[in-house]
């Protein structure tokens, strides 16, 4: 018997939405490009470029936090609420070195990265690994990550109190180029941040460890069956994620003041970058973080500055609703 092949008609609208679903990155960039063009038309190139540059500072911090968080996602299978407090930890470690011990900030940065990397490793060994072995469920893990966030934050509060502190940085000097102006520290943040992100990107893309880490972040079980030594790669991933989080925290500490809430305030935008970039996809998180920082800053051209954080969250909610697997994620079963 023959199978009949009557085909239903697809409307042009359907075809367009199929196209959009298959090429989300193109659509996203198209939308943003249109938005930027509209802004330039309305406010002029200088304002758009200036705010874009400002946005890049926070964007690099989001990107650094998001890359680590998204890599760890594959291991934990959930977004880690304690990640924000890793950033706080990094900032305060730098404070310890830079202000308390009065050493140059560079030393503070390295120390912060190392200390936070070890912190990540520590909790993997004593907490996450045993919970995985136990076969713990999603709710247990998410509540545990909240508990961990409390623990880290309260420990920081114990030692440093809630008073506002700052790193020993130059907050006054500015640099001008191409008609744009930016604080010296801000520029350093951007340069350091982007340099590290590039290095990270190269490492993830081309090195063996990087490929393994990406495979793990994407699908832990699959990576295991592919013969990857998951235990080792997990440890490296935590070191990596911790170091990046620590760096992000220090860089943020250079821009703003240090309080125990520092990391949690950054957490939701970092979540946003992770989700928009496609959970488990470090390149997506990187791009999304940078773009998110700029978009949030660009919004100040249209709405009052005090609304910009709200704007960021609304963007996150819209993104979740329209395309929860992110711009770069694959349409896995949600």
């Amino acid at each position, binding site marked *: *018997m023959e*199978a*009949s*092949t*009557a*085909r*239903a008609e*697809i409307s042009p609208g359907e075809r367009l939405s199929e196209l959009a679903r*298959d090429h989300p990155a193109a659509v996203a960039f198209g939308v943003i490009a249109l938005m930027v063009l509209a802004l330039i038309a309305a406010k002029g190139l200088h304002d758009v470029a200036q705010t874009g540059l400002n946005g890049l500072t926070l964007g690099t911090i989001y990107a650094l936090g998001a890359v680590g968080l998204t890599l760890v996602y594959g291991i934990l299978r959930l977004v880690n609420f304690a990640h924000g407090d890793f950033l706080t930890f990094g900032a305060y470690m730098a404070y310890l070195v830079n202000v308390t011990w009065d050493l140059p900030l560079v030393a503070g940065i390295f120390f912060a990265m190392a200390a936070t990397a070890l912190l990540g490793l520590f909790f993997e060994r004593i907490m996450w690994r045993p919970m995985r072995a136990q076969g713990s469920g999603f709710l247990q893990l998410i509540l545990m990550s909240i508990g961990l966030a409390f623990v880290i934050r309260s420990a920081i509060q114990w030692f440093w109190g809630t008073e506002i502190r700052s790193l020993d940085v130059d907050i006054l000097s500015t640099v001008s180029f191409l008609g744009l102006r930016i604080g010296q520290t801000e520029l350093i943040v951007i340069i350091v941040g982007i340099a590290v992100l590039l290095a990270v990107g190269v490492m993830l893309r081309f090195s063996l460890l990087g490929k393994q880490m990406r495979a793990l972040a994407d699908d832990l079980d699959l990576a295991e069956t592919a013969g990857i030594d998951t235990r080792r790669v997990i440890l490296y991933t935590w070191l990596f994620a911790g170091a990046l989080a620590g760096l992000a925290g220090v860089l943020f500490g250079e821009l703003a003041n240090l309080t125990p809430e520092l990391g949690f305030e950054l957490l939701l935008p970092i979540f946003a970058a992770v989700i928009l970039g496609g959970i488990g996809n470090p390149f997506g998180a990187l791009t999304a973080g940078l773009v998110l920082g700029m978009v949030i800053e660009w919004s100040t051209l249209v709405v009052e500055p005090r609304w910009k954080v709200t704007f960021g969250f609304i963007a996150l909610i819209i993104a979740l609703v329209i395309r929860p697997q992110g711009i770069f994620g*694959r*349409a896995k079963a949600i």
Partner: protein
Amino acid sequence: MATESLNGKALLDVDGVVKRFGGIRAVDGASFEVGEGSITALIGPNGAGKTTLFNVMTGFYRGNRGSVRLAGEEVLHLPAFAIARRGMVRTFQITKALAAMPVIDNMMLAAPDQPGERFRNLVFRAGAVRRREREVREQALELLEVFNLADRADHYAGTLSGGQRKLLELARALMARPRLLLLDEPMAGINPTLGRRLLDHMQRLRREEAMTFLFIEHDMEVVMNHSDRVIVMAEGRVIADGEPHQVRRDPAVIDAYLGGSV
């Protein structure tokens, strides 16, 4: 439980169904009909698209193209719960017995027309709610009796063995009074005695209530001896459709199984 007459139309009419995942067409134009009161087997090598087709038919996947008509009504883009309510009920390959609920709750859950499931009725029609609950409980216990599970009624379904859970899933599906029951590998993991009991029950339901069955199966003995018709799928398409002994000799079918005997 044949309700309105079908006027000679098939109970289920699948026509040109396509389901893509990215670039892959898991179902590539599948078409067949299922008559009321029949027992039809859907077979094919692994990856032929059988379970995907089930998912599209029952609304768990969104079909890209084609048509699925249940008793003449187009259901391709209806949500899964709406299709189940219209009488096409399915079971799952990996059984979905609700382990954290007692067996009897699993059963009572499936019964249709329960006023107690609407919040408003809890307040305004408490009497009707209670009455129907009693009815449903009795029916559930009767059905559990048939499948030898009545003594486990109050135990959490998680305490049942694998085979018992399969039976529970079938019993539960039957509680829903379906017109068409789609079974995804009902025999997998069940010992032969239990399996025979299941098949006997299927035959009885077909005889007494004109219930229709479409099942995916790999056990050829079951397929050959207990189905009226066999549909063979390979690579997302229907490649053969007829009586068991016809299909077994079809060269296309033998090919699809890579030269193995059917």
